[in-house]
């Protein structure tokens, strides 16, 4: 057998064509090189997603950053499905950041599958059709007599592998009309496929940003303001610089970088820095934040985000008003991999490598900072040890570029857990008042939400159910500026609005003596038959999801000693409904089990989808029960896992997941299961104890339950 040598640098020509509709770049190249086992001279790139190598293997490039949401498995599965590739032999690689070849290379908004579904299918189907055309030409038969399966074209008692056909296939005209499979023809999608990086993860070979090591690389840590609103005043770096292995100390922005031979030396030197910090803006504290937000809840006018009918008049005329207020604290992201980034800034160019949910933003920002054209800055995506919204920012990448420029060296900047947890970019602290106007017939006539949050922008999700079903509705809010920095946190705003809303609807249903599911179903029927204003959600999909969880949880059967709570929520284009079961142990409510039904359209990877839902629910309950950041004298009182409580395995609980099976284009699941989880449990706690929980974390309220 010949050695399958090939050279990708010796390209004789490259053809670029735009495929119909998808805007795909289609190119291939060839070179004079030794013959290979497949007859290919070199790897053929059919399009930015598909590469066929001389050894016959098919590589599929996954375009989006992998943050734990599973796209590195799911996105290539979609390509492989339409390509009819043999998944067991497909290699998956992270694609480079390239805005010309790929769209929306972002891990955020649960949007990867939804945004790229059509493109990924087309990428696979286009190449499949070219394979068919090549085989038809070779065997002098019609394409219609041929079919594809497991990376092969079959028919007419003949078969050929894609690898064998590749060199002829790339010469075929790019089909102007791509035939996609019917969902009923899917062989791979909907199955449980294991994460493509599992083996590397289980053997310690998976490379996260924190694991990057490059020749000549130095290690940097940064002394950051210990409190919000602080800047350095006097810096004495003599002791730090005296430590062997320290290369330099570089003040920049409101921080000081220490660059050393390894992480530990950098950390030691940072400790040896003598810095006095001064307050640039007044130090804040949680009690003050509480007062600001409480005052704002009574302040009119607020900014109206949605107004249907005349809520003010409706509330002034009804017999009964049900009212409840809710509050949530700042939350850190606590991705298990603390922030980090590698940068190598040279004259006229910069190379960055690291974990980023928005690599393109990092590229643009770094180019801006360095005064370089965007093309001169490369950003390589690494697998991420979680993001949860924190890695949507680019501050850590910008910081690495600045330090590399100052140190004139490639550097990896490492944040400690304390830097990460105490440094802000928190889920905004918010308060809400929910009100329902009930007329004398017991009808839900008016709905009013007023929110207030710190650096939250719009604290509401104004188009949420029951909007559309209520005649008189006002959703309004206040934003208050704070020097505590905030940012998006898994299912931004939804993550607490869902709790407040779904607990409140439970309270209204209870007051009206209606079954909580029937109560919502009736409102949905109203929204369908007589919609008020814009409807964001699909009534039938919402109802089906609720009905499914009602059935699988045995909601209508009384279980001895088991108390149930319900919630249902639509976010990021997916529908989720839950029933939580609670039992009393020593008179305290304990979560026994959560049932979840979800409609995310076509299920791409069943294992991945289930994992996201279960994880979202456990993560949601962890933060709802225990998560809290207190600010005192401008400083976070929690800075590591000794003072910040995360949910543990012994506090986890069984979760049973069911999907609404349909043939609707898929939507994401990285976020949608988290928002409604805490409400289902709080509503079950109420069923068990008669006490409602209005505030997060639950830890304080739970002491009084039972």
């Amino acid at each position, binding site marked *: 057998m010949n050695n399958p040598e090939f050279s990708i640098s010796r390209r004789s020509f490259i053809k670029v064509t735009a495929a119909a509709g998808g805007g795909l770049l289609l190119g291939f190249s060839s070179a004079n090189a030794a013959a290979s086992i497949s007859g290919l001279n070199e790897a053929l790139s059919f399009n930015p997603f598909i590469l066929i190598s001389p050894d016959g293997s098919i590589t599929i490039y996954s375009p989006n950053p992998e*943050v*734990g*949401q*599973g796209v590195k498995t799911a996105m290539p599965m979609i390509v492989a499905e339409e390509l009819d590739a043999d998944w067991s032999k497909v290699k998956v690689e992270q694609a480079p950041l390239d805005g010309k070849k790929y769209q929306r290379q972002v891990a955020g908004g649960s949007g990867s599958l939804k945004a790229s579904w059509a493109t990924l299918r087309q990428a696979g189907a286009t190449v499949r059709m070219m394979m068919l055309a090549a085989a038809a030409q070779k065997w002098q038969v019609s394409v219609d007599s041929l079919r594809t399966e497991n990376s092969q074209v079959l028919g007419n008692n003949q078969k050929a592998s894609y690898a064998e056909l590749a060199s002829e296939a790339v010469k075929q005209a790019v089909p102007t009309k791509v035939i996609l499979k019917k969902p009923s023809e899917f062989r791979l999608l909907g199955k*449980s496929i*294991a*994460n493509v*990086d*599992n*083996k590397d*993860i*289980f*053997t*310690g*070979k998976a*490379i*996260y940003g*924190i*694991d990057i*090591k490059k020749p000549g690389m130095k*290690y940097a840590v940064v002394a950051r303001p210990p409190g919000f609103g602080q800047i350095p005043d006097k810096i004495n770096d003599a002791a730090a610089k005296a430590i*062997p292995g320290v290369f330099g100390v570089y003040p920049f922005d409101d921080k000081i970088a220490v660059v050393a031979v*390894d*992480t*530990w*030396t950098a950390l*030691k030197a940072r400790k040896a820095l003598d810095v006095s910090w001064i307050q640039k803006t007044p130090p804040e504290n949680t009690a003050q934040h509480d007062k600001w937000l409480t005052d704002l809840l009574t302040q009119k006018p607020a900014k109206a985000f949605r107004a249907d009918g005349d809520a003010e008049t409706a509330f002034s005329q009804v017999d009964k008003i049900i009212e409840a207020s809710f509050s949530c604290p700042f939350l850190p992201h*606590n*991705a*298990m*991999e*603390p922030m980090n980034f590698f940068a190598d800034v040279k004259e006229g160019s910069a190379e960055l490598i690291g974990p980023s949910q928005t690599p393109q933003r990092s590229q643009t920002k770094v180019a801006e900072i360095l005064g370089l054209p965007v093309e001169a800055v490369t950003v390589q995506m690494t*697998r991420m*040890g*979680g993001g*949860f919204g924190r890695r949507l920012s680019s501050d850590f990448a910008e910081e690495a570029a600045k330090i590399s420029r100052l140190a004139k060296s490639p550097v990896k900047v*490492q944040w400690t*857990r*304390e830097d990460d947890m105490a440094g802000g970019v928190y889920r905004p602290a918010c308060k809400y008042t929910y009100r329902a106007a009930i007329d004398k017939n017991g009808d839900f006539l008016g709905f009013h939400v007023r929110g207030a949050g710190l650096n939250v922008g719009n604290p509401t999700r104004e188009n949420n159910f029951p909007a559309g079903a209520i005649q008189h509705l006002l959703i309004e809010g206040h934003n208050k500026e704070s020097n505590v920095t905030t940012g998006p946190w898994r299912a931004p705003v939804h993550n607490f609005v869902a709790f407040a809303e779904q607990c409140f609807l439970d309270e209204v249903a209870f007051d009206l003596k209606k079954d909580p599911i029937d109560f919502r179903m009736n409102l949905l029927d109203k929204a369908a038959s007589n919609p008020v204003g814009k409807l964001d959600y699909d009534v039938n999909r919402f109802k089906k999801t609720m009905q499914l969880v009602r059935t699988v949880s045995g909601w209508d059967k009384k279980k001895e000693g088991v108390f149930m709570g319900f919630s249902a929520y639509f976010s990021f284009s997916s529908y989720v409904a839950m029933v939580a079961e609670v039992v009393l142990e020593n008179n305290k409510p304990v979560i026994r089990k959560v049932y979840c039904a979800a409609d995310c359209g076509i299920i791409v990877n069943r*294992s*991945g989808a289930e*994992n*996201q839902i*279960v*994880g*979202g*629910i*456990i*993560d949601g309950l*962890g933060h709802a029960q225990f998560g809290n950041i207190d600010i005192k004298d401008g400083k976070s009182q929690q800075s*590591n*896992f*000794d003072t910040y409580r*995360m949910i*543990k*395995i*012994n506090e*986890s609980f*069984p*979760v049973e997941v069911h999907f609404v099976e349909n043939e609707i284009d898929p939507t994401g699941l990285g976020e949608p299961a988290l928002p409604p989880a805490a409400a289902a449990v709080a509503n079950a706690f109420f069923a068990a104890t008669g006490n409602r929980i209005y505030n997060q974390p639950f830890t304080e309220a739970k002491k009084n339950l039972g």
Partner: protein
Amino acid sequence: MAAITLNVNGKKRKLDIDPEMPLLWALRDSVGLTGTKYGCGIGQCGACTVLVEGEPMRSCALPVSVFDGKKIVTIEGLSESGDHPVQQAWQEVDVPQCGYCQAGQIMTTVALLDKNPSPSDADIDVALAGNICRCGTYNRIRKAVHIAAQKAR
């Protein structure tokens, strides 16, 4: 600096190293084994768990000097080809999401099963309560521990 010999995954590594450097950073920066992860630096999250003479230990908080001559096993040294029963079980259940904490979860499980070949749910809770996973993969971890126990028997 001090001359310290680490016995990692059956190989002796002679290091001229700050004896106060935590084992974690010695493994990652000096030995070049990055499978052991940094999560908190204070022994509270379990991401840095390695086996020392068969015992699970948090490598982030103890100085490298303590480990001179001790037998250390990291995730990279668990098996030749990634087929340790715990690794197999993790694959079968498809445990990870982001995967970052899993090296620590796996090493802790290996130590648990070594002492207790048929752990109950309560035993698993005790052994793994110090390993944080923000993705919330605990239910799959529990399932995988039971499967690994069966495989190892």
